[in-house]
């Protein structure tokens, strides 16, 4: 059970086992393959769990039960959906640009994969630990917008084009807010590396240590990241009641499943980034001098802390979606450029001042 | 204004007007050529102020057609019904009242679609319910359609 608290033991023992039998280059290759397979399984499981969670949560908000028939309490519903999507006929428009049409879902998936690889899941369970961690994740998740624009353009459908243009404008605007709100905490940590950021929260999460500016940054991060993933009140790119599915109108079968899956993966990524930077990553919740309390908190393995925080953030994002009406495109862009961006900039200056004077905890 | 005064008002404008007795509202039958002038007068005159056209109907009689306008004044709270009599059934034409009451735009298109009455100076006179290529005017009494209609 020791490895549950520090995955370094598990990865270390696998590395030793492999090195004893093969040459170093082959060992690296085998480890890469193991990590890749793990991430693919993670993706699949994420898709399963998040789709089921969304359906159940939306059902409970709407006072109904949701999927109940397939499997006990509907747990096998997503598997049934995937099988159904596999059987669908992959239609392509006659006028569609075939190469770009087929390429678009892959670009979105690739950008999601690249970002997930850099997340710190637990102590020792961190695949790509760059020293520019946050910068890398922001950069790579902005590749997704290319996929959306390609999907909208190559569908040769006016509705898709409108949806894609709206989404493109939305994503590149809100990337600024996401970046700036993360930067507010980086001012305090002094490092872009994700593992350093997590370890610097060993005596308390940044959202508590950074008090007011950190809370403001967290709220702005929540709003901006919901907009980044085309969810919640900002889902006008795929506004069902206006554009009948927007940029992915023309996709059917497995390609549609990719878009769908990528949306949930993106949601997981932004929730994980938010949990890492603001809520302490895999650090348990400590309170100053209560050693007894801290010992109990230590008892829960870090991986469950991480997943718990991510689940909380995802629940908030789902709650937003099923409660609020959606914003219009010009209101959305006004929100970003006239309200969030100035607040963000002022916040960073205040936080830099606080960091300089040492007024944080 | 009560019905007597309205009757005098209309007779002053159009001496050729006819009136039906014992109707629910004051009912005036005028020739089709006068409809635009009487409508303009009824709407703009401060004593009548009929600003709300609440029903525009077409009726097909054996020897003539009628377009019926139900009017109400929202300020003075009185009603009147104007029936415009079109004597020709082969080429029925009448002036539009779109410029006076905007609701007539859609209603006149409907009357054109179902009866074939052409409204002169209408901004956009096209069929509204049926296809552009439909032949015939269904609500006329002599409309025959062996495919869609069951003969009793």
């Amino acid at each position, binding site marked *: 059970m020791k490895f549950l608290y520090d995955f370094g033991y598990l990865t270390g023992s696998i590395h030793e086992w492999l090195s004893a039998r093969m040459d170093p280059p082959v060992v690296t290759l085998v480890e890469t393959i193991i990590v890749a397979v793990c991430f693919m399984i993670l993706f699949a499981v994420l898709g399963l769990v998040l789709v089921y969670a969304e359906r159940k949560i*939306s059902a409970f*908000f*709407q*006072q*109904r039960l949701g999927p109940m028939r397939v499997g006990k309490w509907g747990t096998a519903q997503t598997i049934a959906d995937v099988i159904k999507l596999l059987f669908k006929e992959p239609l392509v428009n006659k006028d569609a640009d075939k190469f770009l049409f087929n390429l678009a879902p892959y670009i979105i998936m690739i950008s999601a994969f690249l970002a997930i690889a850099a997340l710190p899941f637990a102590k020792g369970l961190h695949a790509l630990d760059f020293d520019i961690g946050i910068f890398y994740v922001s950069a790579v998740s902005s590749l997704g917008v290319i996929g959306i624009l390609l999907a909208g353009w190559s569908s040769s459908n*006016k*509705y898709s084009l*409108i949806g894609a243009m709206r989404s493109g404008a939305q994503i590149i605007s809100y990337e600024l807010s996401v970046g700036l709100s993360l930067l507010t905490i980086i001012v305090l940590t002094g490092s872009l590396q994700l593992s350093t950021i997590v370890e610097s929260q060993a005596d308390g999460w940044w959202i508590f240590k950074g008090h007011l500016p950190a809370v403001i940054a967290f709220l702005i991060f929540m709003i901006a990241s919901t907009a980044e993933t085309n969810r919640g*009140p900002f*889902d*006008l790119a795929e*506004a*069902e*009641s*206006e554009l*009948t599915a927007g940029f992915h109108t023309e996709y059917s079968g497995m390609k549609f499943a990719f878009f769908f899956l990528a949306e949930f993966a993106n949601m997981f990524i932004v929730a994980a980034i938010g949990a890492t930077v603001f809520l302490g990553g895999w650090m348990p919740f400590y309170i100053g001098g209560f050693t007894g309390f801290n010992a109990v908190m230590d008892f829960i393995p870090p991986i469950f802390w991480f997943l718990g925080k991510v689940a909380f953030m995802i629940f908030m994002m789902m709650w937003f979606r*099923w*409660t*609020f*009406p*959606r*914003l*219009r*495109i*010009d*209101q959305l862009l006004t929100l970003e450029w006239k309200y969030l961006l100035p607040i963000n900039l002022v916040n960073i200056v205040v936080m830099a001042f606080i960091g300089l004077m040492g007024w944080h905890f | 204004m009560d019905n007597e005064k309205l009757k005098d008002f209309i007779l002053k404008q159009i001496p050729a007007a006819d009136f039906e007795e*014992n*109707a*629910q*509202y004051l009912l005036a039958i005028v020739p089709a050529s006068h409809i635009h002038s009487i409508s303009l007068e009824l709407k703009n005159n401060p004593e009548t102020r009929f*600003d*709300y*056209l*609440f*029903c525009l*109907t077409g*009726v*097909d009689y054996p020897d003539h057609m009628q377009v*019926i306008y*139900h009017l109400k004044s*929202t300020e003075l*709270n009185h009603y009147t019904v104007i029936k415009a009599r079109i004597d020709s059934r082969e080429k029925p034409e009448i002036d539009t009242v779109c410029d006076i*009451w*905007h*609701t007539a*735009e*859609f*209603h006149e298109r*409907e009357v054109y679609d*179902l009866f074939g009455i052409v409204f002169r100076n209408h901004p956009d006179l096209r*069929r*509204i*319910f*049926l*296809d552009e290529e439909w032949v015939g005017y*269904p*609500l006329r009494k002599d409309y025959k359609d062996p495919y869609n209609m069951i003969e*009793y």
Partner: protein
Amino acid sequence: MKEIEEQEIQELESQEYFINMGPQHPSTHGVLRLVLSLDGEIIRKVEPHLGYIHRSIEKMCEHDSYQQIIHLTDRMDYLSCHMLNEAVCLGVENGLEVEIPERVKVIRTIISELTRLSSHQLWWGVMGMDLGAITTFLYGFRDREMITDIFEETCGARLTMSYNIPGGLMFDIHPNFQKRTKDFIVHFKKKLPEYDKLLSDNVIFRERTRGIGVLSKEDAISYGVTGPSGRGSGFSCDVRKHNPYSAYPKVEFREILREEGDCFARYKCRIDEMWESLNIIDQLIDNIPEGDYKVQTRTVIKLPKGEFYQKVETARGEFGVYIISDGMKSPYRLKFRSPGFSNLSALDKMSRGCKIADLVAIMSTLDLVIPDIDR
């Protein structure tokens, strides 16, 4: 050279970008085809194309007896079907000059107001859904289920009730009717403030509906926009006040008028109208007079020669039945003045200069039911 350049510039500017919100679309509330001519996201012109559900009901009425016509009116504005039935019945009863018992009038009014409540609940749910708050759809239908259950017990059907006949009602009310209606009123009075706050106090909703789709009072009168859509612009057109029928002269209620004429005003008009409907039912439900539930008329009804116009206030606006009779068993000409037809004609005027998202908001506040428009 200059002429060629000028010609090119002209051609580029005259290219309009047409989008078709086709007959099948989640937010056109039925089979309505809108051809939008756009300039980016701004709408330059909206052109409705109708006729996808045109069933020539008026022609059918020329061959049917008056009792059969009532069943046809059910299928027009199916969300206010009781009021449409009532319009035809009142027209025929005025023509025959029969006196309707008080009991019939009170029951007709109670069921009319319940129909109005159920129609407004569906409208509220769909309005939230169109703007993105999908949960409101399910909340709206949950309460509507209670009303349709009451209808099913008394009238025999949930949606197309045909409970009225010329001369009275088809059967007497079920013994449970009064109790169930009173229980529903108590339940709904608690829920309506919740629903109101859920959307009205939401800042996103206000931003999407305030100042959008403004219709001035003169335009509302000129385009013939009635009902809550017209009253949101200040046009006082409630038929229940101006030409009262059934039990409306006996009850006290307010006519809701607002001045702004934008989407939010129309929305608030309907919410306030729901309160007034609850008020009316409260006043009547305990005092249903005893008596007959119908007056015996002949089996073959022949209206005397002449013409009769009957107006009622449906959930959408002023509905009129115009009967021209020549003494036979079917009318010579029957015209239905449907409120949706005139409300739709004002759509172009209201949505010029707005964005596509605003068009969805405007259409949901107009509360169109396409079978009512197409007849």
